[in-house]
């Protein structure tokens, strides 16, 4: 479904070049929910933008549904970290969700059905006519998730979507993602810097190194499919997986901070 091969991204400005991504290779199978975790500043957003076709890579290739990406792929929806800036403030909640559907060419009745369904799915059935800035941060991110769902994507990319909400809201939104994924089976790549979140949400965790970034590890999460904020997090296996990812990220950071580089 989503294949990344030898992806490299170098930013060049007048007086210096920065190698953000060195060599990224991994893939996400259809229907999988994969978390991508890495230390802060490891180029997660750069990687996500390359995957979304919003940024051209310097080398390597991204393929979505077998086709090489050189612009935003039609079957993909992206949920951005900055929910407050990715919703149109001059449109109501329902209009925000509906807008991409208009451009997709859905008829009025179909759009109505999809918008109503998606808003109900994220628990916002009662606020279609509110404006985004009238809602809390968590609710705004729900609107962005509803917009992505209504689009009926084949692949959903999420860029640290819960980095800016409080802990309780964050737990609720994590469970929402699990529930939606369970029901729709949409292929999901979830980028985060939070190790607990990655292990709790993912069926697999891809661990990134510090910049210049490579894939450090790729480990399956063999926790029961039914996740629970208290029970799952209390499982010995959860703690083991968490410790393993944590150890790798710390090793990566130590390697990066040595004077001779990685």
């Amino acid at each position: 479904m989503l294949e990344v091969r030898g992806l490299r991204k170098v930013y060049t400005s007048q007086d210096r070049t920065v190698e953000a991504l060195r060599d990224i290779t991994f893939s996400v199978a259809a229907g999988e929910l994969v978390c991508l975790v890495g230390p802060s500043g490891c180029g997660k957003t750069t990687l996500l933008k390359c995957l979304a076709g919003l940024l051209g890579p310097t080398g390597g290739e991204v393929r979505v549904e077998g086709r090489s990406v050189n612009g935003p792929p039609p079957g993909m929806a992206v949920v951005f970290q900055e929910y407050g800036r990715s919703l149109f403030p001059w449109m109501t909640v329902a209009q925000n969700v509906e807008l991409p559907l208009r451009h997709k060419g859905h008829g009025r009745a179909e759009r109505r059905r999809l918008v109503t369904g998606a808003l109900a799915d994220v628990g916002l059935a009662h606020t279609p006519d509110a404006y985004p800035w009238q809602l809390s941060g968590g609710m705004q991110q729900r609107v962005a998730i509803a917009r992505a769902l209504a689009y009926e994507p084949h692949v959903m990319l999420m860029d640290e979507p819960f980095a800016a909400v409080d802990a309780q809201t964050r737990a609720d939104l994590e469970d929402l993602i699990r529930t939606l994924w369970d029901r729709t089976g949409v292929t999901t790549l979830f980028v985060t810097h939070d190790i607990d979140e990655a292990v709790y949400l993912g069926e697999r965790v891809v661990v990134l190194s510090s910049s210049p970034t490579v894939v450090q590890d790729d480990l399956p999460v063999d926790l029961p499919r039914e996740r629970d904020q208290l029970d799952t997090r209390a499982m010995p296996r959860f703690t083991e997986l968490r410790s393993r990812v944590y150890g790798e990220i710390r090793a990566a950071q130590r390697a990066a901070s040595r004077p001779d580089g990685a």
Partner: protein
Amino acid sequence: MSVGARLRRAAEVVALPAVLLAAWWVTSDGSESFYFPPLREVVAVLPDTWFAGGADARIVSDVLPSLARLLTGYGLAAVVGVGAGLLIGSSPVLRALVEPVLEVFRAVPPPATVPLLVAVAGIDDLMKVLVIVFGCLWPILLNTVEGVRAVDPVLADTCRSYGIRGPGRVRSLVLRSASPQIMTGLRQALSVGIILMVISEMFAASNGIGFTVVQFQRTFAVPQMWTGIIVLGLLGVTLAWVFRVVEARVLRWYEGIRSAHRSGG
């Protein structure tokens, strides 16, 4: 708003103008000055000066032509200014090329171009409309360019990733996002437009409010001349009020965000 609050708000709006008018009325009452007649006299001749004569009344023969020229020029400037602003704002290359030139044009006081335009375009309506267009265009154009440049990159990425392109993108993203700046440009242009409407009529015209005021001044009909100034003032206030109503509708979301941020801290 409750009825009481509405009344209070209305009283606040009217209070200062009422005091000023009263002060004018009282202090001018015994005036012997030829150029500053008592307000009483001015008000007495106002209805006859502007509303008498049915279809020949000045409100029809002078105010309407003025208004028509103003709105035509203003409308043209808005269409051209926003259209060109969208193009220039969307293209860094184009912007780098034309922005210095635009700044120079903006710096030229529009009334200074009246003599030139009289010579080139004649003294008919076309000249007056062109003067208004020339004055109104720059604030609208430059503010639109600023607004288009400031489109949020996250919103732009959102549009791209959902395949929102072309005219739909302009309508749903660029125009709406730039609307606060566009409205600022339109507001500045409106006051420039009213000034130019009057000045262009003073130079060479056969009707219009500016023409009428100058005629009264040349024939020493001083109280009538003052009524012209009052009519201009009322016209300006009315247009500004209409503009505010439109603006409040267009920018409801923008005011909403601002008050949400204020109360949210």
